[in-house]
């Protein structure tokens, strides 16, 4: 391998769990940046620099796992890339080395490769934690999960959509007005809103508020009904009636 080793340190909440996903060869095969092909079990990577210069090669992916980390050798027809990941107390340390032609095109891409793989493993670790959480979470926590909301939406119909000038503190009274026109007609109602100040998601079951999620400027309020009073601005509100009687079916 060449002398120049690229090293990246990414802080993650659960380094050991993240490393476990990095040991999954399919993660590297599906999530490595610059992937432009799959043929005969090999991956085709096409690196680009400044959108003018390219280097493409076909690689075998060979994994070697040890107690303290995992090593991937991407053995190409004209080049080799070695990736190593190790866990520390609060982060994953990834290193990459390249040996082959056009190193000036490939090497600048390697930190993106390491970052992307670590972040993908982190995402999968988060999803695994979420999946456990989803089974035990209350509805407010579930509203924070894109996966759960998307499953709910796929079993719902959009029954009302409007743009509302929402004053600060006006969201609760807006929702109260929904009661007459919508909440009595559907056992499960999901309401979402988006304005420049943020987003909210509300869930009603049998007309009663069962879960709240508010995101204001990136700050999440899960189950904090007071946060509804902070929401304001011209808001695209959407009201959905669910066709499900039992949300456990999601």
């Amino acid at each position: 391998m060449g002398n120049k080793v690229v090293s990246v340190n990414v802080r993650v909440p659960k380094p050991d769990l993240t490393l476990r996903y990095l040991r999954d060869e399919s993660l590297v095969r599906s999530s490595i940046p610059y992937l432009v092909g799959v043929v005969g079990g090999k991956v085709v990577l096409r690196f680009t620099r400044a959108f003018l210069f390219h280097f493409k090669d076909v690689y075998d992916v060979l994994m070697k796992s040890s107690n303290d980390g995992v090593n991937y050798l991407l053995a190409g027809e004209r080049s080799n890339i070695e990736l190593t990941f190790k866990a520390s107390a609060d982060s994953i340390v990834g290193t990459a080395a390249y040996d082959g032609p056009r190193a000036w095109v490939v090497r600048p891409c390697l930190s993106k490769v390491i970052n992307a793989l670590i972040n993908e493993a982190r995402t999968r670790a988060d999803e695994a934690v979420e999946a456990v959480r989803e089974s035990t979470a209350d509805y407010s926590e579930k509203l924070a999960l894109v996966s759960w909301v998307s499953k709910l939406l796929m079993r719902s119909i959009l029954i009302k959509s409007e743009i509302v000038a929402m004053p600060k503190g006006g969201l609760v009274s807006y929702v109260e007005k929904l009661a007459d026109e919508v909440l009595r007609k559907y056992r499960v109602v999901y309401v979402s809103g988006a304005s420049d100040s943020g987003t909210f998601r509300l869930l009603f079951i049998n007309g009663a508020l069962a879960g709240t999620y508010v995101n204001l400027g990136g700050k999440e309020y899960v189950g904090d009904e007071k946060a509804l009073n902070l929401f304001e601005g011209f808001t695209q509100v959407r009201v959905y009636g669910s066709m499900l009687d039992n949300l456990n079916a999601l």
Partner: protein
Amino acid sequence: MPLKVRKPYVIAEEGNHAFIWLGLDEAEAEKGILTNQYLIIDSGEGILLDPGGRFVFERVYRNVSEYINPWKVKAAFFTHQDPDVVGSLLLLMDFFPNAVAYISSLWVRFLPHLGALAGLKVVEIPDEGTSIKVGNAELRAIPAHFLHSPGNFNLYDPVVKVLFSGDLGAAVFPEGTWYLFVEDFEAHAKLMEPFHRRYLPCRKALEAWLRRVKQLDINVIAPQHGAVFTGGNVRRFLKWLEGLEGVGADTL
């Protein structure tokens, strides 16, 4: 194991404008006809092209979020009405709240059947096409009627000269093989031929499309299924279509 490509790839870029492929999810029932979704960004605004069905949505959403705030996605362009094009409409409306749907006027009445009974923001594209402003770019919906849907459009991006060709250029990959860019055109043509002979209605529709498309300055053709044509393969693909016989109802 079904193929998954989680990371997007920038197909063309110029200044603050980019044409981005959004990854891949394979379902067994697709039988090798994998779907491509794309995002065009210009000056901080975005448009989604054929965003696909439910099972690809989370990956599309996540990859779009890598490049742009979902609120800045101003439009979604639908070539036609098939479920692998419009299936995620309800999710799209909720997670990209500012996106306006562009679709042929023929198909607007079908959209409520996806669960959108109210509040659908739609621009009905007239038969002759329209222009769509995203950021400072003026994209063009190009008629591709009957290819394969009676109300069908392609989208031309004049900034990076990419034609999003919908079902034209679709290819069926053999199991375990996939590539983003066409390299060996002759080999790739064999993967395209069965689809084009069966799904396209007749040569007349194809010829009308070819006449239109030849007036465009094209560097890249990006289809909804199959692989992307660049460089000399753009010309080869158009020439291949010119010579394609035995199309659809012509064979009856």
